[in-house]
């Protein structure tokens, strides 16, 4: 915090805000029909790819070092995958995943 004064922080926040807006606005504004047509198939893969990367990033916080029998998030996510696939319900999926994680953490604390 010593590095920046209050004005510096404000400038940084505004620059980051403008950049974030421009990223969001970029293709909505400047994509044309030909470009979009060429990108359509490519883009159809985007949701599955992005969501899968966010999910594994959250389960394996430390990358390959998180591949461990002690990483309870793996079991919780596998269970949540089953629930999500079977019931197609977002809240049920979140609650079941958290319940498995909390349950395993609780049991782990009891036995160790």
């Amino acid at each position: 915090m010593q590095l920046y004064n209050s004005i510096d922080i404000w400038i940084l926040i505004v620059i980051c805000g403008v950049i974030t807006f421009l990223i969001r606005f970029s293709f909505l504004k400047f994509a044309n029909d030909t470009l979009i047509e060429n990108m359509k198939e490519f883009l159809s893969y985007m949701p599955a790819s992005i969501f899968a990367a966010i999910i594994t990033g959250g389960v394996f916080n430390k990358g390959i070092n998180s591949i461990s029998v002690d990483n309870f998030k793996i079991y919780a996510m596998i269970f949540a995958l089953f629930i999500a696939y079977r019931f197609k319900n977002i809240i049920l999926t979140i609650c079941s995943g958290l319940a498995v994680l909390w349950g395993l953490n609780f049991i782990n604390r009891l036995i160790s």
Partner: protein
Amino acid sequence: MNDFLKGVKDVSPFITGVSPFGLIYGVTAAKSGLSFIQSFTMSQIIFAGASQIAFIEQLNSNSSWLIIIATVFMINLRMAMYSASLAPYYKDLSTAKKAFMSYFLVDQAYAVTISKIANDKSVNKFKYYMGAGITMWTVWQISTLIGILLGTTIPSSFSLEFAIPLTFMAILVNFLKEKRFIITAIVSGACMILLKQIPLNLGFFVAVFAGVFAGKIYKKGIKNAALQ
């Protein structure tokens, strides 16, 4: 039902996944030494959770201003993909409307909107998206405000941040109806595990593109096999 309210309704299950994240941002911002008004205003100016938390982390570690800006840019670059993905459906809107809706483009609003408008041609795409976007905006403002006011640590044993990948799992299964998308998800997920520790979350982009190309290659292989 009004299409705006449909957007509100469809995005509302994400509130459980996003509010803990907003709380975490608020708490970390308050503890970093930012003023109350700076911490809260960042939620309106940037309005992008993961990048706001990263901003705070970089500040805390006395990073160069260039690193702070680059971090926010890298983390939010995925929104260009969302923007491109939505573009074909919104190409007839005025520039002002496009600019307005751009501000609300977050993971959850994108996720529910793309699954809705790809399958339901009758919905008012702008109203539906705005319903989802404004809901997420409101949730983000309230949860970050509470976090800032709390200013205390949320016990990490609660693992509430895990609600976010769980939320995305619930939405991902809707895209796994075709085998090529399953291939995409597996390759992207595997690459993300391998590349997770690359700084600035750069591994995220590599993983996403690897997944996309794996799906394309798989589809091409199917086509070629059919021709032979």
